[in-house]
């Protein structure tokens, strides 16, 4: 056998599903059929009196203890064996670090590139190292039957290999608060060559630097770039907007300027926008990063 060929996670797991569902279906149909038949055949209208008072049968009890035992042991073993496939990363897998935070993902590559979507080359096994910055999240790729919790302080990982190019869903499966259901992104599977180009492409043009930072720090998990409200207010047209905020419980009206933006990022709970939940974590960004973000927000109209 070709040692570079390995079984993909989907190929490993699906047969287990088939086996388990098949066995369960047979059991369920058998039990239901027996039940319905007995109810019909021995209905009081057909069987006015019981025709048996047998209370037990050792032979039957043994049969229906032993057979299920054998069956479930088979199920267990098969399930365990293929689970090991999920846990055994093929040699030479590409390494990506996924960082989860409330409520966004970012994926860092060996060359330092950071992306909000998980780009991978087709046919190459990818090992994803899972890092959480706050609470427990879940890294879930339904198409590849892969799931692993992203636990703060713990070095969890998952691996998968994509056989075909395309775009696949990536969900946060472990409940993590208000934005949990919005914490979705995609896996973009590219042909080898295209992926290489993507990986090497220069980070961003300068005017895009602010946007890249918003992606990198997960701001866009809670803020949109248009005027829709996700968890926090949308960023479009934020510059110069006047709004009502609560500062230490007292309401006041402000106009968004540089000082305000700076404060909103460094001490988000100092001024809380009216009607929004006080859930934004505080970020410690470098001065030039703040500058870049502010510059970007200024022009976002």
């Amino acid at each position: 056998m070709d040692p570079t060929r390995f079984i993909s996670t989907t190929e490993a797991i699906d047969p287990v599903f088939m086996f388990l569902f098949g066995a369960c279906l047979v059991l369920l149909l058998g039990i239901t059929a027996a039940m319905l038949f007995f109810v019909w055949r021995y209905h009081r209208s057909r069987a006015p009196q019981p025709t048996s008072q047998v209370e037990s049968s050792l032979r039957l009890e043994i049969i229906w203890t032993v057979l299920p035992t054998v069956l479930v042991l088979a199920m267990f073993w098969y399930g365990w064996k293929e689970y090991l496939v999920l846990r055994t990363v093929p040699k030479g897998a590409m390494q990506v670090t996924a960082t989860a935070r409330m409520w966004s993902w970012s994926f860092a590559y060996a060359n330092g590139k950071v992306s909000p979507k998980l780009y991978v080359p087709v046919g190459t096994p990818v090992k994803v190292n899972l890092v959480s910055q706050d609470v427990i999240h879940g890294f879930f790729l339904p198409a590849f039957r892969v799931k692993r919790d992203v636990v703060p302080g713990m070095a969890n990982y998952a691996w998968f290999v994509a056989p075909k190019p395309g775009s696949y869903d990536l969900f946060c499966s472990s409940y993590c608060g208000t934005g949990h259901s919005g914490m979705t992104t995609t896996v973009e599977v590219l042909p080898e060559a295209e992926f290489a180009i993507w990986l090497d492409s220069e980070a961003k043009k300068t005017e895009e630097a602010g946007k890249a930072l918003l992606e990198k720090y997960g701001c866009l998990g809670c803020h949109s770039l248009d005027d829709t409200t996700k968890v926090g207010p949308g960023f479009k047209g934020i510059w110069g907007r006047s709004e009502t905020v609560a500062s230490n419980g007292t309401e006041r009206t402000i106009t968004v300027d540089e000082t305000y933006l700076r404060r909103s990022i460094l001490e988000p709970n100092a001024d809380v926008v009216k009607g929004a939940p006080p859930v934004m974590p505080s970020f410690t960004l470098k001065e030039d990063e703040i500058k870049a973000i502010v510059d970007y927000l200024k022009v976002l109209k």
Partner: protein
Amino acid sequence: MAASELDTRVRRGGFWSDTNRTGIASWIFSTDHKRIGLLYFYSTFGFFLVGVLLGLLLRIELMAPGRTIMGPQTYNALFTVHGVVMIFLFIIPGFQGSFGNLVMPIQIGARDVSFPRLNLFSWWIYMIGAVIVLTSLFTGGGPPDTGWTFYVPFSARTGTNVSLAVLGVFIIGFSSILTGLNFVTTIHRLRAAGMGWMRVPLFTWSLYATAWIQILATPILAITLVLVAAERMLGTGLFDPVQGGDPIMFQHLFWIYSHPAVYIMILPAMGVISDIIPVFSRKPIFGYKMIVFSTLAIAAAGSLVWGHHMFTSGMSDTAVLVFSFLTFIVAIPSAIKVFNWVTTLYKGSISLEAPMLFALSFILLFSIGGLSGLILGAAATDVHVHDTHFVVGHFHYVMFGGTGFAFFAAMHYWLPKFYGRRYAEKPALVGWALMFTGFNLMYFTMQVLGMKGMPRRYYDYLPEFATLNLVATVGSWILVTGLIIMLVNLFRGLWWGEPFAGNPWGGATLEWSTPTPPPTENFVEEPVVTHGPYDYKGSGIP
């Protein structure tokens, strides 16, 4: 109407009229196990209706993608409260508190439980805990939004009112422990003359096993909740990775209780089914000893499998191996029960009255739920379906298709005994049919959704899940229509329906040998048991 209602009240004999207190005080200060049973019945039932309402709201929100009727924060609070109410306020105390109290002492031929005042006290602290849980919705930082599992670190840092909810659950746990030890003592000490262990009715057996789980597992939940509260209020950091704690340890402690707790929920239901099926088949239960054994085996082995909730958490693979293996072992005693129930039907004389219909649908729905549990128990497949709607489907099948339907069976089977009046048969069947249809439409669809990858606790979802979610929502409406028909019929019957007396179903357990409704002391003459609980000939039933 008012006059006739008064009439029925006056004519209702037995423990209803025999009291020296009047009005509400004759209930909330009564130490009679039957009155406490009804107190529990109505309080758990009330909370159940709250839970159902929340469930319906959840389904309406999920009817279409995006915001339908509420925002994400509200949705998160709603499923949390739905879960907490259903689990801690309804399904755990429900069966034991209501039918356990109503029936168990009579089934073993006792006049009351061992500690009647403690029994009343249990109800009181249950109510106090419940009120605290409900208070947490309207005070502090808003309703808790952690999910019923209270996972750290999220529960330690969210600004919502988790501490108060946790306190309420803690108090309810205490009530659960007290009921458990009361029942164990009662069943050990107060069985009537002649009732050896192998003559104990299966419902009582199941309560006995349940009570042990309550005694041994609930304290772990209690301490876990205390630690979460301490984490929030004192910053102990025992589960906080920043301070050296381990969030996975919380999950261990939580599931050490909460997995056995699912057997607290299902065992009494299995007990009722084991009592009802033989009665309506006019045949002794098949394999009494094996059912007793499997009850105890479930209780024992159920304490060994908690790790199957944590397969993807980052727990060691060795633990995955062990817990997956043991999970499959627990399935065996459940299988034994199912096979024995079905065989009891063989060559019987089956009458499909309401309790029996609910009992038979229990077998089917519980089997579907249990078999989907096997998919969850296998490590490879659980990884895919963990934290998806497949799990949601699984536990609604076992908890509601299982315990819920058994509860309905018990309501139709036993309540007339205590009220002396009965419901009409036809509407009961209509209600049953609608519920059965709606139930499968909703929860089977949810399992399919889970297989397709829709995560649970999702307020919003991708368009590809839209159709199935709509189907599930429609299912929930059919279900609730059936529920309403069933309940209206049942309660109208209990108050104004045909009289119910004697032993119309033909049961051989002791509760059918007392007057209807039973007198305060349960028996006119202290019973002496001379035959098994399913020996119809021995008890002179044709």
